[in-house]
């Protein structure tokens, strides 16, 4: 491992700074207790995950659709999100029927398939990539590539942090 390739402004380092900052903040707010209930554990986990996603979305220098969508998801409460998503999706969709989004990750979609046999996978991809519901195939593939890149960075950093800290 060489130290010469460290780029202080790379995606990885940006994400790392933000994420560590968020982690310390979470820690300061609610230090973990050994007898925390599962609910607390779950809450903490949610907070950490949201912090990770938010810091990743912020670290993206060029404004990408998925980053905006992630931030939007984490900010607006779900009821407002539902209303907004109706308007957004109906205006932008041409061939898809109504979609209802309950909360993050659980999207119930009724879709008319288009574009031959690729329809199913495409819709799945749209669900997975945040903000991918209202994009055509070309842009969707672009967003997916960038999203995958950022996700791998995120996973790498988180894993090293986890290894570092859990060895204490």
């Amino acid at each position: 491992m060489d130290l010469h390739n460290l780029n202080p402004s790379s995606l990885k380092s940006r994400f790392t700074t933000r994420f560590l900052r968020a982690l310390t903040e979470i820690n300061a707010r609610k230090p973990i207790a050994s007898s925390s209930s599962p609910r607390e554990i779950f809450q903490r986990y949610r907070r950490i995950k949201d912090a990770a996603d938010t810091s990743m979305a912020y670290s993206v220098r060029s404004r990408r659709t998925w980053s905006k969508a992630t931030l939007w998801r984490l900010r607006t409460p779900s009821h407002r999100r539902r209303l907004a998503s109706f308007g957004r999706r109906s205006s932008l969709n041409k061939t898809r029927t109504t979609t209802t989004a309950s909360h993050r990750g659980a999207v119930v979609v009724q879709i008319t398939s288009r574009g031959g046999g690729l329809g199913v996978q495409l819709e799945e991809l749209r669900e997975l990539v945040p903000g991918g519901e209202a994009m055509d195939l070309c842009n969707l593939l672009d967003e997916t590539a960038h999203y995958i890149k950022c996700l791998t960075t995120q996973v790498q950093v988180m894993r090293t942090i986890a290894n570092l800290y859990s060895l204490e």
Partner: protein
Amino acid sequence: MQPCSREMQAMNSLLNPSQQIPLQDLQINGHHSQFDDPASSHDDFLEQMLSTTSFPVSSSSWSDLKSPWDPPKPEESDPCNLDNNAADGFHHEEILASKLRQQQHHINGGDGSNSFQAMKMMMMMQQQMMAAGRPTVSASGCGVGNHQGGGEGSMLALFNGFGDGSFHHPQASFGANSTTEINQSQGPTAVAPPQEKPKQKVRARRGQATDPHSIAERLRRVRIAERMKALQELVPNANKTDKASMLDEIVDYVKFLQLQVKVLSMSRLGGAAAVAPLVTVMPSEGGGDCIQTSANNGGSLPRSSNGNQKPPANDSLTATEHQVAKLMEEDMGTAMQYLQGKGLCLMPISLATAISTATSHSRNPMISNVNPNTGINGNGSHLLLQSSGGDGPSSPSMSVLTVQSATMGNGVVDGAASVSKP
């Protein structure tokens, strides 16, 4: 003469709205003339022409050309009542020449209604003659001073030759059209087989469509293809050529990555609890990952630079062990959760020993306290619960502990339990 014979019908069809077709027709002759340089033998070319005419479908333009020489209707019964398909080269010439002369007769003596079509036929035949490189025949046929130039020259000469009378208007317009269209039709657009119906369709060759819609379509397809290729490089196992399976792979990989993020954020619950020191440089098991943080993150926290990853003191691990044992007493569920929070998992001892021996060469071998269990009965059927997603290529650093369930000596717990950290 009534244009009811088949050749006249053909001529009508050729004359009808899109005058492109006859010109493209002629262009075919022009094309053929391209590969027939004057030095080559004329017989070969004529035989080629004949062979093409003998094909039923290939180029029905030829069939149209052929039609004037098909076994004509009774009104056209003439000395040229011959079967062209069987004719050889010279015979073909004779037929052409005779037809020309015959048409000339018709034209010279004939009415204006027929004359244009006859002239068209003559022009076609003229063109063929030109392609065949028979200036003499054409000259003799039309009585016009033709030279073996391009098709345009001959056509204009033809027109000039027939200069007077009722030919002026159609001639002039046709002349203008012909030159321009011949100039244009030298382009790459292919020629549709002019069918024998009034509506002609021109279908461009593949990859050379000039329609803006298809161009846009093609651009879009190209862009999608290059994006797919870029994705292929990012996603592992991307040797699929099929688009659908490639999309499947992509979807699975995205799901996997998201799951990894979830799991990793879970595993940090216990780890980040104690302290969050700033790290400057840290070797990771991923082989080359570096974390560099800026210095402005709070001066209150101590700074520690870990040059290398030392195995921590074993007492923390034993403390974990005791903790887990205690939890196991009360409730398996919480014990599991505690382990999960620590980023640890349970696995049977046999597996653990196997893995530990296998990874004894790993970078951070932290094998401690591998003690055979005493007083534990039953099978080690605790299932491995990985709290951090698969590491992929990097070999995980394993620390294998065995929980001495001393407190469970009374046999409450079945199975060998060992705590290992993947």
